[in-house]
């Protein structure tokens, strides 16, 4: 079943004082099926972040369509957008974005409090997701008291607790050391096996090698994509490396 469908997405930036226009996205097309773990790779300035922002509803496209469960997100009204994002999307950021005024427990519960769930429901979901991610012992602590890897797992828990249709992760391993990165990617692997759809934007070949499919963006277009199928992570890593080399050479 298709969860996300992106049709001929274009984004053109016009600066206010000059005639110059810069196009960040040049007609992007792809679909994501339920339960997929997709990584999007590309160099800085290739349009990754713009794409993610449009998918999240933070930015709007110049033309084209984004359908989430067949809903056109550009048609959702400003007022309902926040609620829509809260209920259907889960976000994981490079810089964790945990609130320092909340304990980890409260950070995770934030989306549920916002959508006004009952306290029993909150406890139930929290218990389940915390056990799954192995952070039960961290709940009463504060974000600044735990390591970066742990913080990112708390952030993942926050993204998962609302049972989102899809998780959008923006460079989730960008601020982590390699051990913490591995741990986090294993967490992604785990939740993906539980049929959670994930879309991850990353620079890291290692991170992308955990995905079931990798899309390569260059100059605002999907340049190439590779499937993992039954390959091991190592094999996938090699395939991605080759593709990146080819991509870079092609640019020269």
């Amino acid at each position, binding site marked *: 079943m298709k969860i996300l469908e992106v049709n001929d997405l274009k984004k053109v930036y016009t600066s206010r004082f000059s005639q110059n226009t810069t196009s960040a996205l040049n007609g992007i097309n792809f679909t994501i099926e339920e339960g997929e773990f997709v990584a999007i790779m590309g160099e800085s300035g290739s349009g990754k972040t713009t794409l993610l922002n449009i998918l999240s509803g933070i930015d709007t496209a110049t033309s084209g369509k984004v359908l989430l469960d067949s809903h056109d997100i550009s048609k959702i009204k400003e007022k309902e957008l*926040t609620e829509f994002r809260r209920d259907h999307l889960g976000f994981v950021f490079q810089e964790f974005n945990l609130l320092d005024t909340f304990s980890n427990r409260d950070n995770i519960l934030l989306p549920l409090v916002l959508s006004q769930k009952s306290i029993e429901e909150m406890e139930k979901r929290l218990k389940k997701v915390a056990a799954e991610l192995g952070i039960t012992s961290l709940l009463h602590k504060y974000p600044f008291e735990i390591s970066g890897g742990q913080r990112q797992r708390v952030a993942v828990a926050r993204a998962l607790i609302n049972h989102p249709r899809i998780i959008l992760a923006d460079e989730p391993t960008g601020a982590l050391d390699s051990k913490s990165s591995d741990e986090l990617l294993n967490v992604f692997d785990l939740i993906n096996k539980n049929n959670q759809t994930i879309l991850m934007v990353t620079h890291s070949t290692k991170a992308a090698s955990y995905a079931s499919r990798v899309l390569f963006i260059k100059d605002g277009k999907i340049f190439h994509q590779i499937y993992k199928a039954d390959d091991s992570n190592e094999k996938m890593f090699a395939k991605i490396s080759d593709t990146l080399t080819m991509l870079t050479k092609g640019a020269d």
Partner: protein
Amino acid sequence: MKTSFCVKFAFDNLRKNHQIYFPFILSNAGIIGMMYIVASLSANESLLNSYHGNYILPFLEIGRYVIVLFSVIFLFYTNSFAIKRRRSELGLYNVLGLEKKHIIKIVFYENLICFLTSLFIGLVLGFIFEKIAFLTLTNLVGDDLPFGELFSFDAVTFTFIVFLFIYTLLFIYSALAIHKSKPLELLKEKSVGEKEPKAKWLAAVLGLVTLAAGYYIAQKVSNVPEAIMFFFPAVFLVIIGTYLLFVSGSIAFLKLLKNNKRFYYKTNHFITISNLFYRMKKNAVGLASICILSTMILVMVSSTTSLWFSINDTLKHLYPNEYSLSIHYGYDTSVFDKEMLATFDEYDIPLKDYYCVDYLDFVVRREGDTIIMDDDYYASDPLVIQALTLDNYNELLNTDYKLAEGEVLVYDNNVGFDSDKLVIADYSADVKEIKEGMIDQIPSTVNVVTAQLTVIADDEGFEKLFDVQKRAYGLNSSRIETYYGLDVDETEEGHYQEAFAKAIEDLSYEFKDLGIGYELRSKAYDDLIGFYSGFLFLGSFLGIVFMMAIVLIIYYKQISEGYEDADRFKIMHKVGLSDKEIHKTINSQILMVFFAPLLLAVIHLIAAYHLIDLVIVSLSSSGQAMFVYTFIISTIVFALIYCLIYFITSHTYYKIVTQRN
């Protein structure tokens, strides 16, 4: 490092941090201006040589020293705020290769620039507003004085030296702070997370107890000596209580709310409570200070205005007539009357009306319902007994009141007398009737209007009362006075002071044995208005200075809140809070934080009402009714100004928050 480079650097820094330094310089200039004005007024020849000058001068002197003291505290507070906010900036310079001594040199020039700029602006403001202050003051006392030498070089020197001294202290403080710091710490400072503040239950309870104790004392005082004696202890307790409540009480309270899960995990409580938690930890001291300052302003302004407005009633009470004479009792007044009228005629004093009454008054004390006469009459529950004869009473009030033998008529002023027998030592009489108040035509000998019984008795009873008190008090006993109340037409009041004095001189010469004493209401007015105007001027002057402090504290709080909230704002937006929701929650938090001090200040004031009222009543007679009005009006005006400040400063806050997004 070259000086010119340092100066340029310093200028750039000030410009870059204009959000901090612009208000800093402006408020410093304000205080400098105020200080110059009091210093200059207290040296103003024209004022000094005027009649009221003697009364006003002490108040100006007090004002001057309060402002000096206040400036030191205030400048240290604002300077430490500025240094704290700029820590990472200064740390960055250090990392980039400026040595600490260079940074200190730059800070020195920054301080110098601030000092010179605010001194210049402040003195200019001082020169401009000096005239207004002078006119206000002379208008209050009702004088029409020439400006005289308004510009005072001594006042400039005084202001210059005081602020030079303060700024030197500030510089030493900043230099030490920079010297002690480590660059890496400076850079990291802001990013360090904070532990959840612990609820200090003991301190919170202690705060409640001290506050309650302060309030209790203020409610319990029953007379003026007590009120004056307990005023400062009560104030002290309330100040301690306020600080403890803001620092610990608020956190303990929020902790309670947080522990109640059903309450805490509600959309609008969740973010507010946990943010307030952190906000309170950082702002508690500042908020408590705002609360104390607000209370001080309200007390000063409402009590001094109430005194000033009640001046005419006070005078009417103390001096029922424009002129008053008193002579020894027992003389044949018809001879004196004739001579007196003739003398006044001689001096062209257009007497309109006069009356004459014999009265006696003395102080006793009460223990329960019994009236006791001993030397200890100020110990507790003092009470003034005033007595006059029935004949005099009927004459005065133009009535035909009748008393049977051994009966008295009693006027009760704040005594609560309800017995049908009046017993004073071995004097006793049946009470025919009790009326409220006192007889206005007789001057009140004590200006403390706490309690007085006026006893109207027949001649025999009157004599008996005199004997009773004479036996009890011996040498300290009172004499019966014959009082003359004399009036001219209202429009002519105050015009014949000299003629009257001369007339009395003639009369005293002629009637040497009578011990003539006299008083002029218009003369008393001159004395009193000088005193009250000085008081009111001081009250409003300090009120303005404190208000400036409140403005700056609130403004700085808004800025620091703004910078901290900007990041949170961003995260919450990403996690799924709409802009509207964010605005709403942050707005309500700030509202709560900034209006808590105002609320507590008003509560303080209501608690202090009884005590202040007592003191005011002791200084004036009709202050009571006035004080209610000035109290309410000044509270409303203050609240409006407070709101205005809040809205203006919160604009800066929103600018900072939205800038970052």
